[in-house]
């Protein structure tokens, strides 16, 4: 590695503008990526983004791993909503393997995925508040993300990088305690969110800081490949949950909120409305889960011995279970050949998995379509000509997650 890591732009001596390095480790970037901003006074002339600081070669690593070991890689994409990534991966595998999951599993998955969406949007919206100068909302909402993490903990044992669920369902049934915690969250969160909104939505300072900041038209947003809340804020009602329903989302009643101007304020409002929709989806799914009776009310995985680990007590007592356990753990199951693209509505947009299998034990090629990576390239266009402080708030309202960008 030589000294040419420091690349001064051409003609940088004697120029009229200032070069400002925003990142790679700047508190306002909320992640590890760098923006080299060219400033004229406080106005941004150009922005050059450098990413890849936490590139971990997941796609390469995945080529050596059996399917169930790849789930832990997906955790680390968008770590604010890792359960959605996990579920997306399981759904991709299930699509490739042709597994049909029971309805109860689908509904439980919806509960987990929508909780993850809430925790993702909650962080994003409160961080927008922080960057606008209001720390209180962030600290206040953070306590309620804790309630969501406690639910994850009850279901899968971990909090941030969850590795939740398995191919075909969940690793264990939801405990009564998990549902208790869910009820607690459903009861306590709405009034808090309402209070948070009271603080921001019609706050003069907040509105001045966000309205008309970092706007993008629907046409440009589509051209850039925007998806998720950022695309919907520009006025395009594209939602994977509606367009290509997965995990029985077609059984749920919900609205897709859209904005019109695609600026920071609209992105804030869209995320906020989505949280309310998610709450209603969780309630519906929870009601449907409670309606199951008899043996159905205990189902938490599909019956696929080739991919789903047998219960431990069977492994110790039954020959067949022991064989499957061994084969799965050693990664000795061949995946059927085929190529499949599956996408889910992640916290930031369409999270796609393109999986090619040549019939071996590991994927031949796996590509993650990371929404963050796709829409971050529009950043220069969004901030050009705006003030430096607006660039910061634009960045946080796009909800850029370095883990997802670099993969």
């Amino acid at each position, binding site marked *: 590695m030589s000294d040419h890591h420091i690349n001064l732009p051409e003609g940088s001596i004697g120029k009229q503008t200032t070069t400002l390095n925003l990142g790679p480790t700047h508190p306002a970037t909320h992640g590890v990526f760098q923006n080299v901003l060219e400033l004229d006074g406080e106005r941004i002339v150009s922005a050059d983004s450098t*990413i*890849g600081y936490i590139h971990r070669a997941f796609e390469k690593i995945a080529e050596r791993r059996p399917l169930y070991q790849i789930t832990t890689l997906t955790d680390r994409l968008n770590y604010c909503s890792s359960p959605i990534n996990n579920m997306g991966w399981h759904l991709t595998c299930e699509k490739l393997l042709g597994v049909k999951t029971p309805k109860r599993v689908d509904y439980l998955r919806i509960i987990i995925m929508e909780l993850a969406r809430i925790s993702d949007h909650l962080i994003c919206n409160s961080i927008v508040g922080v960057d606008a100068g209001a720390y209180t909302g962030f600290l206040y909402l953070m306590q309620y993300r804790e309630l969501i993490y406690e639910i994850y903990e009850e279901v899968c044992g971990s909090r941030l990088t969850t590795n939740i669920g398995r191919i075909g369902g969940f690793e264990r049934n939801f405990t009564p305690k998990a549902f208790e915690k869910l009820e607690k969250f459903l009861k306590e969160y709405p009034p808090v969110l309402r209070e948070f909104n009271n603080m921001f939505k019609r706050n003069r300072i907040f509105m001045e800081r966000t309205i008309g900041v970092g706007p993008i038209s629907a046409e440009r947003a589509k051209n850039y490949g925007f998806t998720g809340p950022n695309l919907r804020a520009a006025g395009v009602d594209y939602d994977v949950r509606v367009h290509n329903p997965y995990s029985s989302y077609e059984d749920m009643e919900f609205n897709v909120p859209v904005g019109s101007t695609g600026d920071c304020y609209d992105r804030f409002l869209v995320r906020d409305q989505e949280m309310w929709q998610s709450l209603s989806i969780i309630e519906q799914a929870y009601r449907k889960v409670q309606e199951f009776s008899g043996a159905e009310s205990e189902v938490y995985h599909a019956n696929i011995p080739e991919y789903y680990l047998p219960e431990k007590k069977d492994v110790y007592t039954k020959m067949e279970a022991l064989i499957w356990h061994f084969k799965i753990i050693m990664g000795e199951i061949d995946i059927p050949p085929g190529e499949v693209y599956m996408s889910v509505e992640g916290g930031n947009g369409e999270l796609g998995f393109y999986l090619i299998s040549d019939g071996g034990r590991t994927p031949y090629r796996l590509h993650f379509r990371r929404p963050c990576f*796709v829409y971050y390239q529009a950043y220069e266009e969004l901030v050009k000509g705006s003030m430096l402080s607006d660039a910061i708030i634009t960045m946080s309202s796009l909800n850029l997650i370095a883990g997802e960008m670099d993969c």
Partner: protein
Amino acid sequence: MSLSNDRIKERLAERFGEQVSNFAEPYGMLTFEAPKDQNLKVMQFLYEDEELKFRFLTDLQAVHYPHLQERELAVVYHLHNLEDNSRIRFKVFTSTATPDVFTATKLFAGANWMERETYDFYGVNFIGHPNLKRILNVDEMDYFPMRKEFPLEEQTRVDKDDEMFGR
């Protein structure tokens, strides 16, 4: 879904005849192959045609097939028609000796980084790309790490044993 896979196939065959080939529908998504010098023409046709309207580039990536002679690299495009909600996938194959493919950045601004990533990992040279340089790896890297000639380390390898740190 008002736009069926058969109809898309028909329209493509009308316009490009024999040039588009290998139609398949794995898991319901129409997949086909185009010659590499035609990739932009095919994409532009899909974009501009009043019936097809594939105006959203979902994803773009490459796959390496070292065993295929003269067509080792496949560049895969996933396109989406948001109005009729139908998706297609098309591939162009190129050799590693001359991995030149036309860029899609004129049609889709979002292709910029996706193509840079594809170049970074597979060395596909996108002709006409405004800024084709590495994106996730360091600039000094002189190989394309996702190609199959760079296998991941053998898990059972012993020659790297270290007194202090073990494996």
